[in-house]
């Protein structure tokens, strides 16, 4: 399963990569990371991941707009929003735009893995 990580925080990108490198997990190939929505769209076009972890609050292009553009590119792509924005309206909007799941920050290693395994099952 090919995965792209999108977050403006270097330590979050690095942490997600590290958690998913656990050999006990189903093989997940991280095809690249992006720090904002604009970079994410470019990277998506060149790597065609099947799953994406996507932050919402980012410079240049936020995650809500990015979700719409990514789903336009590939309606089958599975997007897990990983964000601290905890209001219900934001989560509903992201899901309406085509996201498949929502994981609130701060998250534990186990919560991230479980959320991605759910997406893989879909």
């Amino acid at each position: 399963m090919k995965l792209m990580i999108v977050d403006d925080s270097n330590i979050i990108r690095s942490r997600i990569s590290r958690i998913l490198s656990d050999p006990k997990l189903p093989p997940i190939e991280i095809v690249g990371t992006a720090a904002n929505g604009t970079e994410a769209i470019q990277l998506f076009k060149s790597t065609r991941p099947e799953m994406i972890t996507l932050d919402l609050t980012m410079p240049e292009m936020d995650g809500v707009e990015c979700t719409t553009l990514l789903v336009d590119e590939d309606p089958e792509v599975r997007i897990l929003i990983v964000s601290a924005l905890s209001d219900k309206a934001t989560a509903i909007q992201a899901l309406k735009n085509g996201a498949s799941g929502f994981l609130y920050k701060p998250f534990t290693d186990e919560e991230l893995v479980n959320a991605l395994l759910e997406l893989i099952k879909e």
Partner: protein
Amino acid sequence: MSDLSEKDIEIFIEAIGGYFKQITHEAASIGVAYLAQNAFPMNDFTGLIKVSADYTGALYFSAPSAMLRHLLTVMKETDQSEENLLDAVGEIANTISGNARKYFGENMVISTPEKIIGIPADLNRSEKNYAYVIIIKWKHYSASLVVDIKRIR
């Protein structure tokens, strides 16, 4: 324009407490919020989130470099460069303010984090209004959260 209430401030206290518990599996000691006009307890690195729409002002999370290095170690992050220490204060400020929207709603729009070394210029203004200060103690470190936010609608 109105100041945030004690109940409002409690939301930020819960958010910062939740952050430490979730990330470190260890509770931080969170002090009672107090009001300050200047003499804010700032540390080496500060993450700043500006709020807008129905609110105005900013939230600051400020921590010493040693505490941030320890937090990165807990997160198994080996790159403890200045860039990553700045990233950490920005991400913590972002997480606290984002989590607070569960209570304040989508009409508290939050910015992406600004990351500052030293004392933020906005906190040095002599005409500054009062802001809430919350002290966070974790292990032997002390950090601070300054909530300088007002409701305008």
